[in-house]
């Protein structure tokens, strides 16, 4: 193994080992647990940086056999290239920030030790996905991440909806994973190996390849919250805020996008799959943005914005540009982690998730205000923040696919992604501006909380995660430093497009600064301006009132949850009850019935044998007579 390969193997191994130790700790041993958690993330960060320095540009790969199933070999292998290293750095940075932040955020939680260990496990699983050189290894990391999200979303015992949200997150992604597993099976069985390099080198028939890619996309839709499997992500807000940052920024939702970039040479040869991905991306992008406009829960706004941004990344993949998708993944990781951690500070200070209970926090919380403003600016794509460059990259490739038919997908996919992306820019600017105005500016509404009229149609008012002590203030150091740290890449990562090594690591094109740039900037100004104009008229009112009759539809995300409940959950439950009844009455009933009827038959025969003396004597004599006749008849014939 070369140095780079050892580093690649250590990336998931170190946090995994420390997570196992952490899970065995007593629940209340905070200091050791914090040390293990932060240490694991820090070592992973060091390994990732070292990997970025040492890895060859062409990539490197190691392989050792893990197990052989009747000629199908599964390998333990790492597959490393500069893009891998960059994603690993992003994962490790966010994990480190979340671990440090959690020490402060969960200072009064009596189950901190397993929580920190589960974050380490989560990090290890994501890093395994990042470095995996074998599809089965990738699947291991993929699903372990799912179970970690389940455990962490269900962590908070004070939220009655947390257990249901946790189960939903795992099951919705698991349904997608059925497709993912089958996709892997199709690829592995056809190629005779699960190793990614073998799979990429294999010459599949077009039908097999399209089927495999579509099946994989089901898993990607589940993990990366693409329509129609996006429903778990907003509910996952029941998890502690640092967990939301972890899930939304660098792990879990990033895995789906990343897995497609890893296998992109396959997708490139399956335009039908790319077209499906493009439609999914456009729907997700708009759905998420529209739903974000009408939420009152600050975390839900951010959650829906994640759905929407994932739509951008999937759109970039659909028009054939994994580099643009990865670049947006990196910048999104920075600004979304920043936004969630800053939102956590706000929630910590106010004691509520609802924006209707906030307002006017700019003066008491200046640091949080400026950090949030930078994060929202990056999200909306305000030049020159990170999101501007990465989103512009996606719009440029979509525009080229649409107008010049560049890339593997049909031109209409390019048009779809481009137009949806442009509309999305305006919507994003609108809801980002609304979030900033409602939370930090205008009069404080802290007293009117919690049951104002507008809360009724939104998400159910959640129990406050923390009881605030005194007036709102900027968070203490443990919470503040991670936020400040993340502000740097959120603001400046975009300039990396001018750094040739970064560009070549992602295989990114040079930044385009042409006339088409005016469109998104204009839409950005339009969206933000409309929100500001509405707020300006009445600073106490929610700009979302401007949505009019559409507001409930947006707030409930077009009732897709209810649709899912009616079409999937209830029928499956009914089927379960039916299966149980049939199993108990028919299948087991036949068995019990056999037993009972045998016993009954025995009882009947028993009765027949219980007779009075006269009848018994008559029966014996009759028997003797019959035997005698038989003997005579047989003897006579002999």
């Amino acid at each position, binding site marked *: 193994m070369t140095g780079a390969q050892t580093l690649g193997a250590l990336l998931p191994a170190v946090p995994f080992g420390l997570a196992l130790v952490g899970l065995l700790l007593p629940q209340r041993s905070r200091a050791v647990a914090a040390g293990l958690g932060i240490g694991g993330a820090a070592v992973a960060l060091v390994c990732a940086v070292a990997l970025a320095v040492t890895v060859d540009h062409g990539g490197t790969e190691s392989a050792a056999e893990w197990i052989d199933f*009747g000629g199908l070999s599964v390998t333990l292998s790492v597959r490393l290239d500069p893009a891998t290293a960059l994603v690993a750095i992003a994962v490790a940075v966010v994990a480190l920030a979340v671990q440090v932040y959690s020490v402060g955020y969960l200072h009064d939680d009596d189950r901190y030790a397993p929580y920190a260990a589960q974050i380490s496990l989560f990090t290890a699983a994501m890093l395994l996905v990042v470095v995996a050189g074998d599809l089965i290894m990738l699947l291991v990391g993929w699903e372990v991440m799912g*179970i970690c999200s389940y455990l962490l979303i269900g962590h908070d015992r004070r939220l009655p909806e947390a257990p249901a949200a946790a189960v939903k997150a795992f099951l919705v992604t698991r349904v997608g994973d*059925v497709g993912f*597993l*089958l996709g892997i099976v199709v690829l592995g069985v056809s190629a005779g190996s699960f190793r990614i390099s073998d799979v990429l080198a294999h010459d599949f028939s077009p039908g097999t390849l399209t089927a495999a890619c579509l099946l994989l996309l089901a898993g990607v839709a589940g993990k990366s919250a693409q329509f129609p499997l996006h429903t778990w992500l907003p509910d996952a807000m029941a998890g502690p805020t640092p967990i939301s940052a972890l899930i939304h920024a660098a792990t879990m939702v990033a895995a789906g996008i990343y897995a497609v970039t890893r296998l992109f040479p396959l997708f490139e040869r399956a335009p039908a799959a790319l077209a499906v991905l493009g439609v999914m991306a456009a729907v997700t992008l708009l759905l998420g943005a529209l739903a974000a406009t009408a939420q009152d829960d600050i975390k839900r706004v951010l959650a829906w914005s994640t759905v929407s941004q994932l739509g951008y990344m999937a759109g970039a993949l659909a028009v054939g540009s994994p580099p643009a998708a990865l670049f947006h993944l990196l910048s999104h990781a920075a600004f979304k982690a920043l936004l969630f951690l800053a939102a956590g500070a706000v929630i910590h200070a106010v004691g509520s998730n609802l924006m209707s209970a906030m307002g006017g926090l700019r003066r008491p919380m200046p640091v949080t205000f400026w950090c949030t403003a930078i994060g929202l600016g990056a999200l909306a794509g305000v030049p020159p923040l990170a999101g501007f460059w990465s989103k512009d990259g996606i719009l440029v490739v979509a525009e080229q696919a649409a107008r010049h038919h560049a890339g593997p997908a049909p031109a209409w996919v390019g048009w779809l992604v481009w137009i949806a992306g442009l509309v999305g820019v305006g919507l994003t600017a609108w809801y980002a501006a609304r979030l900033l105005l409602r939370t930090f500016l205008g009069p404080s509404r802290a007293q009117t909380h919690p049951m104002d009229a507008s809360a009724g149609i939104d998400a159910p008012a959640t129990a406050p995660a923390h009881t605030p002590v005194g007036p709102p203030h900027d968070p203490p150091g443990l919470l503040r430093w991670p936020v400040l740290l993340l502000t740097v890449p959120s603001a400046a990562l975009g300039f990396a497009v001018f750094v040739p090594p970064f560009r070549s690591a992602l295989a990114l094109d040079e930044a385009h600064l042409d006339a088409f740039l005016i469109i998104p900037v204009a839409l950005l100004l339009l969206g933000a301006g409309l929100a500001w104009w509405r707020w300006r008229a009445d600073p106490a009112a929610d700009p979302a009132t401007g949505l009019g009759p559409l507001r409930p539809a947006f707030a409930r995300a077009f009732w897709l949850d209810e649709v899912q409940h009616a079409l999937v959950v209830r029928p*499956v439950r009914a089927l379960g009850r039916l299966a149980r009844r049939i199993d108990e009455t028919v299948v087991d009933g036949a068995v019990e019935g056999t*037993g009972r009827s045998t016993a009954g038959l025995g009882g009947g025969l028993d009765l027949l044998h219980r007779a009075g003396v006269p009848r018994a004597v008559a029966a014996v004599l009759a028997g003797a007579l019959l035997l005698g006749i038989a003997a005579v008849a047989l003897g006579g014939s002999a």
Partner: protein
Amino acid sequence: MSLGRVGLVAVLALPALGAAVLAVLPHRIDRAARITGTAFAAAAFVLSVLLALGGDDNWFGYRPRTAGGPGVRPWHELDLTWVPGLDLRFHLGVDGVSYPLVVLTALLTLLCCAYTAWRVPAPGRGRTLVALLLVVEVGIVGTFLALDLVLFFLFFEVVLLPMYAIIAIWGGEDRQHAARKFALYTLFGSVLLLVGVFTVVTAAGTADLVDLTGGGELSRGTQLAAFSLLAIAFAVKSPLWPLHSWLPDAHTQAPTVGSVILAGVLLKMGTYGLIRVAVGVAPEGARWAAPVLGTLAVAAIIVGSLVCLAQSELKRLIAYSSVGHMGFVLLGVATLTATGIQAALIGNIAHGVITGLLFFLAGAIKDRAHTGALAELGGLRESTPRLAGLLGFAAIASLGLPGLAGFWGEAFAVVAAWRVGGPFWTTLAVLAALGGALTAAYLLRLLRRVTHGPATPAVLTLTPGLAGAELAAWGPLVLLALAIGLAPTLVLGYAEVPVEALLEAIR
């Protein structure tokens, strides 16, 4: 006599001796007797592990095979004349297919004996319970080791009565009914097994499994008849839907250690018999019946999971989950490919480890809370976080999370079915994969009911600590679930050669 042969006999003789010693020990030193029994179980376990040494065809020394050899090539073999007049032979052997199962049996018996040494279920008489467990071990290990069909049948039957007694004496409220149902139902299977065994023996003129494997001597008609009889007999034991309905009652009513042995290794006699005896002896019959077997296996996966979704009792839910999990194992066997049979072997072991652990935990919860109704349980993590954590681990392992033991068998049963190809097997693979999602649904429902939410009155009063004996009984299973998940070679490293030998013989 080589050491290996001594080991083969000793693995059977030690638990038998232990049971005999316990039977003569006086009644008043019950605790000492239980510990003595545990010591015998421990010695048998150590010996069973050592069986791997000295074999020249296994993990430790791979020997290239000569083409066209027999379908069973044991590492250690013992072949004695037993009843010369009837041509019965005492023929034992161990190879990579049986070895992991023998070790698992010895391990679970040891853990159950140790658990009983710590706590005896009502109505007491722990000495007798330990002795019966040891007798059950003799029967199960003998079944896995026997290389003579008649001997196989005898060991297969040895298990029945002690298990009946375990359920009928130490079981729950409805124990008599459950025990009777278990005994009669499996006896029905045994009758078919007996007829099947003698169909084969009279047609082939030998009962030796090494000679019989491959089925060369038997006509097609005999093979079809023999496979049908044997397969139904083993399907009752495994159990295969729709012949499973003895299982939920027996598992639910049995005492904790009884459920662990039942789910952990007793069911494996069925799947092992299917691979070694039914498929080995009547391969043509197996090929003929494979689609039926595959269909029923997938039906078991789906129906078992759906029934679990609607279950309201903890132990009954886990019992039904066995139906689904064994469905994956049987699907692997039904493909009649190396991938499928290897998946079945590792699925067998994984199910034994994980479901054994689940039953231990369910028993601990029921002992503490005095109820198994899901509606009355809840918030376990508030009062006994360690127990809740272990239950969470076991449930997650059971839902086939990649990286833990359960994953390999289930995922590769799907792979094997897909690999067979054609619309029929592809459909089976897809349905089985969907069953995987349903499995996750019912296990998470179980966790949500039992561990999350506010603590119910039944749970609120529990003390958080776990006894040392409990940790000692559960710890090895937790470690194995993780170790087999990370290093499946632990099980399959031995199996590759014998599975290929079997497939070569039945081709």
